[in-house]
């Protein structure tokens, strides 16, 4: 079942178009930076970008920071929102369930597919960014190959690679909250668009509340609160506090929303 769902996703042209678009933005940023050689002043603009001009090895992290706030969540919301509602809209859901695929199995397979999609998107972004970054900005020979961490201490290339991998995992995990929300909405409606938009509205609301001082008391519970905490992975030493909280918060959202999705989907009358 999982294999079937993966094949369906991979054979869908849309999957690849979305990934290509996600990948295009950081690549464009890299070319603009290389051409103009004008980076944002340290402390402004997306994370790491000011440091990238010195060392391309940091560009994957910068690329993650570029796609994280909007591009990645939008694509995740589209793909997860489509998971159940898309089948319902196409009429294939009733055939899958009468096959019988099993409702829980189908839901799990859909979740894993979304997970794979997120992982693929992150990996593609990072790999592309690494090649683009190192070829455009070099590997920081001026500093003896070492990389300047966010906190000023130097990082060895090995450390940088390890931390980039950790950052990828954290970013992918951060997307699960959105994915769970979209999957839940997808079990409620037969319109994939409505599900994706609902999940995005959830994100936009969260981002908006983060900027509001009056919302201070609920800030730690907003799903987007710890997203950018992956920057802390590039401190020396790593500042784990926000990362741990971020993981915990996402896990909570995922558990609650997927539980709701499962409860709804397994007891739902399929009338599509």
């Amino acid at each position: 079942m999982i294999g079937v769902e993966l094949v369906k996703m991979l054979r869908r042209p849309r999957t690849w178009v979305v990934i290509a678009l996600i990948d295009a933005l950081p690549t464009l940023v890299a070319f603009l930076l290389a051409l103009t050689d004008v980076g944002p002043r340290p402390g402004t603009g997306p994370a790491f970008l000011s440091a990238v001009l010195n060392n391309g090895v940091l560009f994957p992290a910068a690329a993650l920071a570029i796609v994280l706030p909007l591009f990645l969540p939008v694509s995740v919301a589209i793909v997860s929102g489509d998971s159940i509602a898309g089948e319902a809209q196409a009429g294939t859901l009733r055939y899958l369930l009468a096959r019988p695929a099993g409702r829980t199995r189908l839901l799990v397979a859909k979740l894993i597919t979304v997970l794979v999609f997120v992982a693929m998107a992150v990996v593609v972004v990072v790999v592309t960014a690494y090649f683009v970054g190192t070829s455009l900005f070099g590997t920081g020979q001026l500093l003896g190959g070492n990389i300047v961490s966010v906190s000023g201490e130097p990082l060895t290339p090995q450390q940088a690679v390890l931390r980039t991998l950790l950052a990828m995992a954290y970013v992918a995990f951060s997307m699960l909250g959105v994915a769970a929300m979209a999957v839940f909405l997808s079990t409620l409606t037969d319109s994939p668009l409505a599900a994706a938009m609902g999940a995005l509205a959830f994100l936009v609301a969260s981002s908006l509340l983060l900027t509001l001082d009056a919302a201070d008391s609920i800030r730690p519970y907003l799903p987007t609160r710890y997203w950018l905490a992956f920057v802390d992975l590039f401190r020396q030493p790593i500042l784990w506090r926000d990362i741990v909280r971020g993981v915990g918060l996402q896990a909570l959202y995922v558990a609650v929303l997927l539980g709701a999705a499962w409860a709804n989907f397994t007891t739902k009358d399929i009338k599509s």
Partner: protein
Amino acid sequence: MTGTAAIRTVGLTKRYGSVTAVDGIELDVPPGDIYGFLGPNGSGKTTTVRMLLGLVLPTAGTVEVLGARIPKHARSVLYRVGALVEAPAAYGHLGARANLSIMDAAGPGGSRRTRRARIDQALEQVGLAGVGRRPVKAYSLGMRQRLGIAAALLRKPDLLILDEPTNGLDPRGIQEIRQLLLDLNASAGTTIFLSSHLLSEVEHLCRRIGVVDRGRLVLQDSLAALRAPTGSVVLRTPDPEWAVGVLDGDLRERSGDRLVVRAADPAELNARLVGHGIRIIELTEERRTLEEVVLAATTGSADRVDGAVPSTTGPRAEVLSNDDSAWDRPPAGPPVPLPTRRPTAPPHWQATRDTPEPASDWQPLPTWTKPAQGAPDDPAPVTAEPGAGWAPPPTWAEPAQPAPPDSTPVPAEPGLGWQPPQNRTEPAQPAADDPAPIPAEPGLGRKASPDGAEPALPAPGDPEPGLVSGWEPPPSRTEPAQREPADPGPTPSEPGPSEAGQAGSDQSEARSEESA
């Protein structure tokens, strides 16, 4: 009937809020059967089918498919069920084979090793073998339908649950699929559960039917039993007047050259008529069409059906609510010869019960001396010719006397509910004297009970009020009653006995006069 029924539901009920979509349906489909599941749109057919497949969860009651409870044990059994639920569906960007492959891999029971061969075979069966890699979104409606059926056949299922399987197919395609289903049933013993509102479809294919109406199963029986001969014979003859004489009280209905006659044995009737030198064009046992059976079983109040969407519901809603126009429509089923638009249904029910009555009513001669008096006014053409050849039948000798110059066939008819033309002005008299057949029917009609029980109403004394009151409530069965007395009117007044086509308008005319 045993524990291994292909489909069995007990008290199956589904409520959506306060709306009861399915109400205590008890389906029983034995293995190897071809079962037709009929009902108007919105009657709960699709909801029932979805409950059989575990898509919709019942509010109450149980579903057993191939001996396993649904939805609890769906996984252990549904892979042996091929289903087509409403429209077919497929992934538009993939081809037929990829679609079938995905569906096959999505559940248990589809071995990967045999998949390719099974897909090829299924596509072959439905006539899509050469479809290639074209994506499904480029398919025509008929091709999609075929693909949907192929998906249902993929694992050589023991049970096929098909909802409108021939939707979107052209006549040849329908024929192909029908043959395919019959072959599967004959060769592999595949049980077929066919949900449809295409009556002809079901009539051609199914051996048993269940009729659902407003969520209730109102009928479940074998088609053969439902369509058993009614005990009457429909015949056409170029010599209707002679035949009428010979047939005497057995004649139940006449329109032009088409006669409906009570006769247990058509062969005997044929011999009798031919023995009298009457030529026969066509002679068939009368059977109820499936449409009549279904219409009798369903009520379908207009308000409910009006809300539903297109298809056959529209016409049917009319049929159910609007008396006359409905019956003037030719029945869809084949057995009744079409040239006349006469309703054939209602008389049957009466036929089985009231057979003796006409005879007994017929005897009092006074009754029909009256029409005989009227006869002189009658247009000559009709009566003149048969008069000569008509003499022989012994029973008729007496009646013939009162109206000497005029021919005899005329009197024959009043016995059947005929009224001479002038009695439109004074309808009460002859009608009142008329024998039972006429009044009997309104009674039946009002009950709308298919078995024709309740001969209570026929009060032979005054059919007229009965008629008037009898036909404002729609229960589809009433109108033939009114038609019966009014009907024959046109026949004598208009010399051409074969002008059945006009019957309709004439009836309505007659009726409006009567009710006024």
